[in-house]
């Protein structure tokens, strides 16, 4: 297979756009953490990006069909690793997300599980050959995503659990979901809302309440949103000269969750739109790769990545702009954080993988 695959087919344009976004992120992280205890974070981010690039190249070399063949084992491994976290995980910030390995490394499986889920869903739908989804297929697909989702929910980590959802939705939609089935799901979701509300933790309830009414809690979760709006708004057209909100630490966690707000404050409408445009181009490019994929599995794979990426952007930027409640979901490629960066590059690696083999029979 390797003979037919060359790096000419590597999507250099895509890599280029991605790196531009990453660079903007690094600069923003640097300016946001300059005088704080996080100073130097941008250097770590550069290491993560370089590591991610390496991972991406490696990932693109393995034939994705090989991965798909072994997806059953990987899925079992994913579920097992989530189980390990539930049993042995360390509590940090109220949730068991990590396991401490000997050597002091923290292992956070929920990101790896996302990658494996994309593969699993792709494989599942690739094997269905009907135009429309039967009920049993529908339920099976739901279970594939649902089981890990519930395990992450039990950590408890609502934010990350929700990021598994777009994978399922995209798969179902492209796999031929009937509008009747969609209606049933929505109905069930609607009925389950009160039950879900009951099970939410207090801080999660706080976040939803302050999302509805930011002024209700001016110094709690509502505070973050308020500060974000002020930061973004004061950016004006070309950016605020003082960048006071970020500089004086009124904007909380400017290097992670609220990096878009920090960027918007500094670069205004023009800069922010530019970043949105870059993300849009990346997504469109990815979709194009999906369309030129050699087979069904490849298409599902790429679209799975598109789904996750879009979801992240929607939720994070939406939160910054006040459309969405505060969650811990980072902005891909820009937010500071190793697992997010690595995940993105590995996912892009899988996309490259598919693209590079598009001419292969």
């Amino acid at each position, binding site marked *: 297979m390797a003979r037919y695959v060359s790096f000419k087919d590597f999507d250099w344009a895509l890599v280029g756009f991605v790196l531009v976004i990453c660079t903007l992120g690094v600069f923003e992280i640097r300016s946001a953490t300059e*005088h704080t205890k996080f100073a130097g974070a941008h250097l770590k981010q550069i290491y993560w990006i370089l590591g991610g690039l390496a991972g991406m190249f490696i990932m693109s070399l393995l034939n994705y069909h090989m991965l798909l063949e072994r997806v059953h084992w990987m899925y079992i491994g994913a579920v097992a690793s989530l189980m390990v976290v539930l049993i042995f995980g360390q509590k940090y910030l109220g949730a068991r997300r990590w396991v401490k390995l000997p050597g002091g490394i923290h292992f956070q499986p929920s990101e790896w599980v996302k990658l494996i889920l994309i593969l699993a869903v792709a494989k599942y739908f*690739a094997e269905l050959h009907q135009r429309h989804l039967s009920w049993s297929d529908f339920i099976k697909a739901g279970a594939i995503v649902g089981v890990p989702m519930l395990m992450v929910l039990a950590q408890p980590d609502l934010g990350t659990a929700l990021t598994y959802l777009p994978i399922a939705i995209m798969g179902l939609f492209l796999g031929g979901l009937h509008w009747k089935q969609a209606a049933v799901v929505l109905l069930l979701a609607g009925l389950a809302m009160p039950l879900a509300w009951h099970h939410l933790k207090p801080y999660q309830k706080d976040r939803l309440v302050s999302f509805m009414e930011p002024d209700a809690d001016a110094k709690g979760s509502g505070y973050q949103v308020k500060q974000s709006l002020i930061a973004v708004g*004061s950016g004006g057209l070309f950016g605020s000269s003082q960048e006071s*909100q970020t500089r004086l630490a009124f904007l909380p966690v400017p290097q992670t969750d609220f990096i878009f707000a920090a960027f*918007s404050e500094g670069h205004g*409408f023009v800069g922010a739109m530019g970043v949105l445009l870059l993300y849009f181009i990346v997504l*469109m490019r990815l979709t194009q790769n999906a369309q030129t994929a050699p087979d*069904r599995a490849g298409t599902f794979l790429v*679209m799975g990545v598109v789904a996750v990426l879009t979801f992240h952007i929607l939720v994070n930027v*939406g939160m910054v702009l006040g459309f969405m409640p505060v969650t811990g979901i980072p902005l891909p490629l820009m937010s500071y954080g190793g697992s997010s960066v690595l995940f993105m590059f590995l996912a892009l690696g899988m996309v490259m993988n598919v693209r590079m083999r598009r001419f292969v029979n």
Partner: protein
Amino acid sequence: MFGRDEKPSQIRLTAVQYMILVIFLVLAYGLWRLQVSQGDYYSAAAEQNRVRNVPILAPRGRIVDRNGRIIVDNYRSVTALLMRDSTRNLMVDADEIASGLHMDPKEVKDKIRRFTYTPQYQPIYLKEDITPDEEAFIEAHKLELPELDTIMAYRRLYPLKGFMAHVIGYVGEVSEGMLNQPRFELYNSGDIVGQSGVELEYNDILMGKNGSRQVLVDSHGREVGKPLEEKPAEPGKQLKLTVDIDLQIAAEEALGDKSGAVVAMDPHTGEILAMVSRPTFDPNAFAVRITSKDWSKLVNDPEKPLLNRAIQAQLAPGSTFKIIMSVAGWQEGIAQNLNVQCNGGAEFYGRRFGCWVKGGHGQVDLTKAIYQSCDVFFYNLANKLGINRIAQYATSLGLGQKTGIDLPQEVSGVIPSEEWKLRNFRQKWFAGETISVGIGQGAVAVSPIQLTRAIAAISMDGRLVTPHVADPTGLPSNYLEVNHYNEVKNVPVDANGWTLITDAMSRVLLPEGTAPSAHIPGIDIAGKTGSAQVVSLATRAKHQNNEDLAQNGWFVGFTPRRNPDIVVGVLFQGGEHGRLAARLATEVIKAYVDKQRRQPTGLADGKPSSDGKAEIGAIWTSPDEHGDREKLELGHLAVALPNKPRRLAAAAPGLQ
């Protein structure tokens, strides 16, 4: 296996692309709305936006005595701050600031320089405990020097000269180590908590909860408009102690500069009426922030001023232990019939044990052995009883274990037994060691509170109380569960034995006893002296002038001899003789009795004293040397008496 055909519907793929476009348009619209159409509003909001959370400090609860007189209070301490989040050049203003705050301009500039690389929102703490005129300076220059601000904190105000320092304790910032303990889980770094004494033990009650005030601060750092939100502070609750200030003053004056401890207790309830330990320390040194130099001095002082000797000194009780021996001997039916010839010493197990009277006491029975403190009698008694029985009675009277007093870090003392020696030294107990235990030497070690409580129990026909310094009424249930304030155990003591022993003890202060010089006419005091050796007499003789090896003087006394109202225990370290300790104790007892009979004031019987004035003990605040800060003083106030004897007012309905 993987069909190349049957790709997912192109329609659906395109639909996804359009969905993504729609999402981005929505986001773009959001951006537009915030940045372009409402941009000015948000810029202004950013200007005004600094919401500052100013804590409203909660004052700590006061500590009062059993009559409600204030012992510990708070004072208002103001600190001057330099805010750095404005655009002013601080170096230019440094000289003016320094002159207004009576500081060295170089020091101010140094501080500003040191903070250059820290985040701008962190203010510089310029000067703590500023005076009112310095406060006025800051206020008057709010426009010219807007970067100056003040923050107010409550600081603890303790009585001077270490009065009641060990019972009260002191406060300080909670340490890392403390935060890891479960009882301090809910506290934050920087909180001021009690570190010793009742400040520590009752910290949950005394410590209030800070409130907060949210204010808008503009880019110059000034407060703008009304506070957004105000959460009031919950002040700490007052703690009432069982201590009586008048008695405490008498006890402190009695012990004076001598080393040791005094404990005065109500034997019915276990309420502590006075507790002193010397040497003492000044808790006011901790109230601001103790310098590491002063702290090292306190901690490394060989006299150990931080030690509360009343509950933390465990020493050989000497002859005071003979009372416990007497109870043990009587209950076992041995002591009442024991008659011994004391010739100045006796031999046991091949060793000679001397009596403190070289010539001997002659024929001695239990009563004489007590008031004359004959060692030979008690050697014999100890030999007959054996260590295990002695240990049994001693522990039933509360020795060798903590009393459960509501102060931290009490010691448990040592009552030896065969089992104790096996467990700690893996050796057999030799019968010869029992002999010295009989006179309260050897392996026995007690603390003043334990001894006081044991003697109190004997004086009360076996009623063993739990000593406490805090008044349990009004305490929350979690304290009542842990400290059993009103718990009383009954130790069986034969009524005849009790009568005989207390009668014998009342002769100790008569001419035939060991402390006649401590006798006070008109007051029936029963007690027992003790002179406890620290090293053997032979070694002592070799080091004649070494004060550290001097004997400890003990005395525990009570009045009246039956059903007493008060028990006082005194440890006089280096006091050599028990009778000196006895004199200290009887001074305290006299103060108590005088107060009961209201002797010095003469108010109760309507008779004015000669100069028409009466003295009462009190604590009040007064300005200190610089005239600007308050401190607590204690002493006596002269109160003018009315010339005519006053008619007592008729009780209002409903009042007693």
